[in-house]
């Protein structure tokens, strides 16, 4: 809006005014790119599942899907595992997110780093670290046996427990970061106001803070759930036969049977399940919660709207009042034991308890990856805890293997290329989305962010099918294009966030001082947001560097990437070489995060 005013004020610019829709031109490359490399292939894959070889409509693939109970059962297992994962992520993530949102700046920065570290560490590395921890000869069994709690090692992996631990560990950082973004916007004065009005900590939390944080919980639950349905690394490495998830079936269909149409049918089943969850979510909580506004509670604690929502709201309201009551009675009991004294300062014990819980959860998230490091120096040929002896042999194997080194170099090159391409396409789009009022802006943003929501496996299979016909399978270009689809949402979100804090009057000042648009961009805007742009690039880079799903299909034979190489090796055997590679990866990613965090903080300060 201010942009429009400035344009009108500057006659040179006002004269060559674009038609309204053309004014959004920087958005077009991103939209076009996603239309060709994302929308078209996905749509085609889904279409493929509906037609037979001659191109006529058919239900044959779906008939097969439901003929045996196998696929339906796999779907149910997928939904069950995803639901449990979501529940644990929310329960464990909420206290951490709450602490992040309500603590002092300094503590928040430290704590954020320990949440970001697992967030960006490769899923593969983290899954390996759970094998080190939970395996029959792992650290946990070692401890249990040493303490004499059992005679034989407990079965902690290759079953549901292992999958749930691994997946909760994998997805909780995502859940936390999503909840924090909502909690940060809750006015801290509200809790204080509740307290001055006579509410104890429990009532203030349950009646005020908790309902206001619900949009964050809901968005976080949705994101975690959708991502969980598309998982295959964790169930494949930590699960048993009974924990096979639907993405594993898709992989099997594509890699072993080359049955595109049937893979497309399963993909559609997955997509429909995801959309169904969206729909139920909307009915129960309302889409407004996604946009960040709080659910409304009226006099009887019921929500307005349809009867289902009202019933849900009423139950929610009663539950909240009940929880507040219970936690207050608890607090009163504590008070009987330790009465509050008016004449002496005291600390709230509940805050201390919260920090204890929060730090334990953060330790659960951050520490496992460190267990992989000592294992990489073992002299034994298999992974066990505690590792024996000390050797650099496994690092030697990695460095001398052409396959490993090439995979690493290729991952780095593809990562850099993806970062560059994503920046080139997504930055202009972020400018338009952050600054201009164009028609269909919400739709455009939703489309650009949709690669985050659509299960990644569907994108991967669709791209494989597309690439197979245009000869991009096994090429680096194909990988870069695919990874760019996934990186664009991250870049757009990061750059938009930076631009939100950028004072646009600085640009207007530059124009008024005689700089044209290009020079303003070069000499004023870009230098000021440089740190944010670097952070966006690093996010794009890591997204690609750690990507396995697309690489799984699009790479072939010798031309593999580092995650793909690790995956292939891991399916065969978890060796100390993998631990060595994981250690290198872990150190590298940690360095990148510290770098990104450094630039982000500079951007915030600027």
């Amino acid at each position, binding site marked *: 809006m201010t942009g429009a005013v400035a344009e009108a004020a500057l006659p040179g610019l006002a004269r060559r005014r674009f038609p309204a829709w053309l004014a959004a031109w920087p958005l077009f490359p991103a939209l076009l790119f996603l239309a060709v490399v994302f929308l078209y292939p996905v749509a085609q894959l889904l279409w493929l599942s509906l037609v037979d070889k001659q191109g006529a409509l058919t239900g044959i693939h779906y008939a097969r899907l439901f003929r045996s109970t196998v696929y339906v059962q796999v779907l149910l297992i997928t939904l069950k595992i995803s639901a449990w994962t979501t529940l644990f992520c929310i329960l464990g993530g909420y206290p951490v997110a709450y602490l992040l949102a309500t603590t002092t700046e300094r503590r928040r920065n430290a704590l954020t780093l320990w949440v970001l570290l697992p967030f960006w560490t490769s899923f593969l590395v983290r899954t390996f670290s759970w094998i080190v921890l939970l395996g029959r000869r792992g650290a946990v069994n070692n401890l249990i046996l040493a303490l004499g709690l059992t005679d034989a090692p407990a079965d902690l992996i290759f079953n549901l427990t292992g999958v749930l631990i691994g997946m909760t560990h994998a997805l909780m950082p995502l859940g936390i970061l999503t909840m924090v973004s909502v909690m940060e916007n809750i006015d801290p*004065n*509200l809790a204080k106001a509740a*307290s*001055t009005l006579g509410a104890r900590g429990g009532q203030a939390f349950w009646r005020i803070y908790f309902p*206001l944080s619900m949009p964050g919980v809901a968005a976080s639950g949705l994101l975690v759930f959708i991502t969980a349905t598309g998982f295959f690394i964790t169930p494949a490495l930590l699960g048993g036969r009974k924990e096979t998830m639907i993405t594993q079936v898709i992989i099997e269909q594509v890699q072993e049977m080359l049955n595109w149409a049937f893979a497309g049918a399963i993909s559609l089943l997955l997509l429909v399940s995801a959309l169904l969850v969206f729909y139920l979510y909307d009915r129960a909580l309302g889409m407004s919660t996604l946009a960040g506004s709080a659910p*409304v509670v009226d*006099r009887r604690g019921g929500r307005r709207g349809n009867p289902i929502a009202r019933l849900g709201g009423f139950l929610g309201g009663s539950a909240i009042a009940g929880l507040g009551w219970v936690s207050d009675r608890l607090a009163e009991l504590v008070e009987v034991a330790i009465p509050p004294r*008016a004449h002496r300062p005291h600390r709230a014990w509940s805050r201390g308890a919260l920090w204890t819980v929060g730090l334990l959860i953060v330790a659960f998230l951050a520490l496992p990856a460190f267990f992989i490091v000592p294992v990489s120096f073992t002299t034994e040929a298999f992974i066990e805890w505690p590792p024996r002896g000390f050797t650099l042999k496994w690092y030697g194997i990695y460095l001398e293997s052409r396959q490993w080194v090439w995979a690493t170099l290729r991952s780095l090159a593809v990562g850099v290329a993806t970062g560059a391409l994503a920046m080139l396409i997504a930055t202009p789009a972020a400018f338009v989305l952050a600054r201009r009022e164009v028609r269909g802006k919400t739709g455009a943003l939703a489309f650009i962010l949709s690669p985050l929501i659509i299960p990644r496996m569907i994108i991967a299979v669709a791209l494989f099918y597309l690439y197979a016909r245009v000869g991009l399978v096994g090429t680096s270009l194909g990988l870069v294009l695919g990874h760019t689809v996934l990186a664009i949402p991250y870049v757009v979100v990061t750059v938009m966030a930076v631009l939100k804090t950028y004072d646009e009057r600085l640009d207007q000042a530059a124009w008024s001082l005689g700089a044209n648009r290009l020079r303003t961009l070069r000499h004023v805007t870009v230098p000021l947001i440089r740190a944010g742009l670097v952070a966006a690039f690093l996010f794009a880079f890591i997204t690609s560097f750690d990507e396995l799903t697309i690489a799984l299909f699009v790479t072939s034979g010798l031309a593999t990437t580092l995650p793909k190489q690790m995956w292939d090796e891991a399916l065969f055997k978890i060796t100390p070489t993998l631990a060595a590679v994981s250690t290198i990866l872990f150190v590298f990613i940690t360095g990148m995060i510290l770098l990104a965090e450094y630039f982000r903080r500079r951007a915030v300060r600027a």
Partner: protein
Amino acid sequence: MSEEPRYKLTIRAVRKTYGPVVALADAALDLGEGEFLTLLGPSGSGKTTLLMVVAGLIQPDRGEVWIDGRLATYLPSFKRDIGMVFQNYALFPHLTVHENIAFPLRMRRTPEATIAREVKRVLEVVRLPDVGERLPRQLSGGQQQRIALARCIVYRPSIILMDEPLGALDKKLRDQMQLEIKHLHTQLGITVLYVTHDQEEAMIMSDRICLMNEGRIEQVGTPDELYFRPHTAFVADFLGESNILEGTVAGADGDTVTVSGVAGATVRVQARADVKAAGRVRFMVRPERMVVLAPGDDAPNVVEGVLRDVILVGGVTKYYVALADGRVVSATRLTAGPASPTVAGAPVRLGWAVDGAVLLPDGGAPT
């Protein structure tokens, strides 16, 4: 019950530091029942810190806070029997107006029927009887302000604390709300501790003002006392405009003190029992008491200077005059018509009555 019950609030030697920064230095204050007391001062003066200590949202390093005869220094907020209006109102965005006002009553486990009655009553008191089912964001700023107030008065706390409650409103609405809050105060007999940095607002609303600066209390008194008998140059300068002059005491004679060396002139100033008149002294003359003398006119006290600027402000015209010692003072006059063409640099004489000047007790910080 060692405290005298006639005070709703007593603050004794309350101190709060943040590292080397003294946010509050040994503040002491009494607040009587039904009184409206304003904590006034520039930002960083400690007024909000003091309010937060009373609210129980900041724990002091030492000192005592008594609320309605009960020691409350380190009691949690919810046990204090206070009400607080926040600058941004802090209305709960997910609750309707009715639920917002009912909140403190629910916390006190008031029966549902009483809640309905009381909420209805206070909504009428703040003259918004029909907004109960609306959400805070559907109300204007002024209406939200009144709901925030209603939420406080509904449970009749011992004192109501207000932290710059009108800061977010525009000038016109602010003027209107000042009077409205003042009326509610008189009508309901509530005891109010109010924080503002706006001296005009403090003068309009308060029974007494507590003027703070750099973490300490400069002076507590009625608006009259602070305006006409400031204890320090800071007080004189903060409330209204003032010209601070200084000179050497040449003699004292009953009611008046003779001061010489005031921009080259000798003047007479009214004596003050609480001020020792000897050596170097400073005194204050309000611009509205300074008169630009026409040629031939005379006044009990006269200094000479050079006219710098004449500015028409509206109802008054301001004259800025440089004195012989380089100090620039101002005189205001009611605007009578278009100002006669004045020449910057023209010599002028300024005069004031003996009771137009007020001796200042402190050597004070130079202003």
